[in-house]
C-alpha cells in the first residue's frame, strides 16, 4: 500500500488538485460550523426578555409585589410599537440619602465594591476647590460631616455650595460599549435599553474601557460585564426601576418618552436638561436637570 511517506512523488498538478479539494472541503465544513454555531448562539431579544421576565416573575411572587405593579397606559400607537424609555435625574431634588443605591443592590444583587447606580457629593470651597466623594457609592448616605473635615488646613473653611448627583448607566443612543463588544453580547432593545447577554459575553472588559461614564464593571461572580439595566425585568412588567421607586425626593423620573402624556415627557418638555460628557457624542437617554459644569 502506498502511504504518504513512501509514495515517491506526486505531481505538482496532483498536489494543487488535492489542495484545492481540501480547501473547498474546509470552506464548506467551516461554513457549516459557523452557521450552526450562529444558530445555537443567536438569541432573539425576546428570549432574553422572556428569561428576564421569568426570573422576576418568581421574585414578584415571593415578595407579593405582583399585585401592586403599575399598569402603564400607553397610547394605541405606542402599544403597537412599544414604548421608548427615558430617565431624568433631577439633581436639584436629590438629598443624598442613598436609598436608590441600597434599593439597586437589593434588587439586582450587585457584588460588593461595584455599583449599578451611585450618588456623588460635590462640595465647593471659596478658593475654587471642588471636593467630590462617594463613599460606598453613597449607599450609606453622607452623614452630617462636611468633606472639609478631612481637607488640608488651607481648605478648612466652610464650603460655599454643594449638591448631590446620582449616576447610572446612560443607555446612550450612540453607545461606545455596544460598538466595541467583539461578540455582540451588548445590545440595545427596541425600548432603547442597553443590555448584556450574560451567556454570550466573553469577559474581555473592552466595554468597561469604552464606557466614558464608568457604568460598567466585570462582575466577579459571573466573570462577565455587568451594569444598570434600568431594571429591565421590572419595566417590562410596567413597573419603574427599583431606584426610582425607592427615591423619597422624586429626583429620579423614569418613563416612556414616546408617549407625550407621560410624566417624563412632561418634565422633558418643561425643563432645560443636559447630559453627561456631551462632547463625546454618545447621546445618552439618561438626562439631567440642574447639571453643574463640574460634574463629569
Amino acid at each position: 500500500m502506498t502511504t504518504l511517506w513512501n509514495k515517491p512523488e506526486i505531481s505538482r498538478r496532483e498536489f494543487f488538485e488535492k489542495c484545492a479539494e481540501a480547501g473547498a472541503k474546509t470552506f464548506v465544513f467551516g461554513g457549516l460550523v459557523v452557521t450552526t454555531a450562529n444558530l445555537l448562539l443567536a438569541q432573539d431579544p425576546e428570549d432574553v426578555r422572556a428569561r428576564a421576565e421569568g426570573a422576576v416573575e418568581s421574585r414578584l411572587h415571593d415578595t407579593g409585589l405582583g399585585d401592586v405593579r403599575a399598569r402603564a397606559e400607553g397610547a394605541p400607537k405606542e402599544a403597537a410599537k412599544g414604548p421608548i424609555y427615558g430617565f431624568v435625574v433631577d439633581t436639584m431634588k436629590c438629598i443624598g440619602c442613598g436609598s436608590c443605591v441600597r434599593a439597586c443592590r437589593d434588587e439586582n444583587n450587585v457584588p460588593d465594591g461595584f455599583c449599578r447606580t451611585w450618588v456623588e457629593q460635590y462640595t465647593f470651597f471659596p478658593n475654587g476647590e471642588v471636593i467630590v466623594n462617594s463613599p460606598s457609592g453613597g449607599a450609606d448616605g453622607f452623614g452630617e460631616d462636611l468633606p472639609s473635615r478631612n481637607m488640608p488646613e488651607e481648605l478648612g473653611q466652610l464650603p460655599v455650595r454643594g449638591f448631590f448627583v446620582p449616576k447610572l448607566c446612560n443607555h446612550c443612543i450612540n453607545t461606545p460599549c455596544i460598538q466595541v463588544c467583539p461578540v455582540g453580547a451588548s445590545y440595545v432593545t427596541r425600548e432603547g435599553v442597553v443590555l448584556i447577554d450574560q451567556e454570550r459575553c466573553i469577559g474581555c472588559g473592552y466595554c468597561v474601557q469604552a464606557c466614558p461614564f464608568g457604568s460598567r464593571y466585570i462582575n466577579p461572580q459571573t466573570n462577565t460585564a455587568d451594569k444598570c439595566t434600568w431594571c429591565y425585568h421590572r419595566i417590562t412588567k410596567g413597573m419603574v426601576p427599583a431606584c426610582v421607586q425607592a427615591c423619597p425626593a422624586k429626583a429620579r423620573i423614569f418613563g416612556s418618552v414616546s408617549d407625550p402624556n407621560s410624566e417624563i415627557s412632561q418634565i422633558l418638555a418643561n425643563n432645560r436638561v443636559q447630559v453627561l460628557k456631551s462632547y463625546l457624542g454618545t447621546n445618552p437617554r439618561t438626562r439631567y436637570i440642574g447639571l453643574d459644569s463640574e460634574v463629569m
Partner: protein
Amino acid sequence: MHHYVTQGYVLPNQAHIYWTMMIVLYPYITGIVAGAFIISSLHHVFDRDELKPVSRFAMLMALAFLLCAPLPLLAHLGHPERALNIMFTPNVTSAMAGFGFIYTIYLLILVVEIWLLYRVDIVFLASNAKSEMMRRLYWILALGVTDISEEAKALDRKVMLFLAAIGVPAACFLHGYVGFLFGAIKANPWWASPLMPVIFLLSAIVSGIAMVMVCYLIVQWFNKRPVDSECTQSMMESAWYFVMVDVALEGLELLNHAYMANHDWDIMKHLILDKLLVSLFVVQFLIGSVVPFLLLGAAVVFRNRIPAGVRNVMGFVSGILLLVQVLAMRWNVVMGGQMFSKSFRGFLDFQIDIYGREGLLAVLFLFTLPFVAMLVFSRVLPLWGPISTFPTRWLRDKPPEYVPLKNLTKFK
C-alpha cells in the same frame, strides 16, 4: 479582587484594574511577531543580503511568538471557553472582533511562507534524516510534494515573494490594529489618538528587530560561533532608524497633549509627572530610548573606527534596552490609561499580583513559551541556513535507500 489604593475621587466601578499585565504582554508579543517578520522580509522581499544569516531564524521567531500571542488573551478573558465567539458571532463594529480573522490570515501566510522556505530541506531530510521517525515526520511536513527541480524552486520563490509582499502589510495590520484597539477608545484621553496605531507599529518593529538581534548574538556567543557583523550592523541600522521615528512620534504625542491642554490635561499632567514619571521618562525615554539611540548612532556613524566585536556588544546592549523600552511603552499605555478615573478627579495605584491567573508568574511563564517553541523548531528545522549548514548528526550515515530526485545529489 484587589483593593487598589486610590487618591481623589475615583468612580466606584473604576477602583479596579480591568486590563492586567496580560494585556501588557499581548501587544508586546504581537509586536515582536511583526518586527521579526519585517526583518525577515527585508531579506526575502527587499534583497537585503546581509540579513540572510537571520532571515530564517526571524521567520520562525515570528511564528513562535504568533503561536503564543492568543495565550495572554485567553488567560485574561472572563470566559475563555467562549473565545471563539469572536469568530462565530463577530460584531462588525468592534475592532477586537477583527482579531480572530487577522490572526488566522496572518498565521496562514506565515506558515505557508515558512513551509516554502524550508521545502527543499524538508524533502531532503525526508529521505536523509537520521531516524525513521524523523523521516516520517519530514514526509508529513513535505505534504507529499517532493518536486525540488529548479523550475519548482523558482515557482516557490515567486510564491514566497508574493506571500512576503502581502505578509508585510498583514504584519503592519496585525499590529496597527492593536494600536487601534486603544486609539479608538474616545472615553480614555490617554489612549484616544490617531497616532496610536502608528506608534504601536513602529515600536513593534523596534522590539522585533531588537529581539532577533539579541537572540542571534546570544546563540552565536553561546555556541562559540562567529558573529556576522555585517548582519548585526544592518540590524543596528534598521533599529536606529525605527527607534528614531518611533520615539519622535511618541514625544510628539505627549507634546501635543501638553500643548493643546484640553479639559483632560490636568489629570494627564498628573499622570505623566507623578504616576508614570519613572516608567515613562526614566525607563521608556531615558534608559530605553536615548541610551540605545546614542549607542546605535555611534555604531552606525563610527562604524569604521569601532571594532566589529565592540559594535556587536553595543548592538546587544541597545537591543536589550530597546526590548525594555517597548515593554515599558506597552505598560505605560495599558496601565497608564487605567491609573486615572474617568471622573478625571482621581487615581489608583496598580499593585503587581505575583500569583494567580493573571499574576507575574503567569506572565513570565507565558513569555517563556515562545522560546520553548523556538527550541522545538530548532530540533526540526535548521534555524540558520540551508542544508549546507545542517549539523551532520541530523543525517544518517549510510546512503539513503531512496532519493526522490537526482537533484538531491547536489546537496551532498
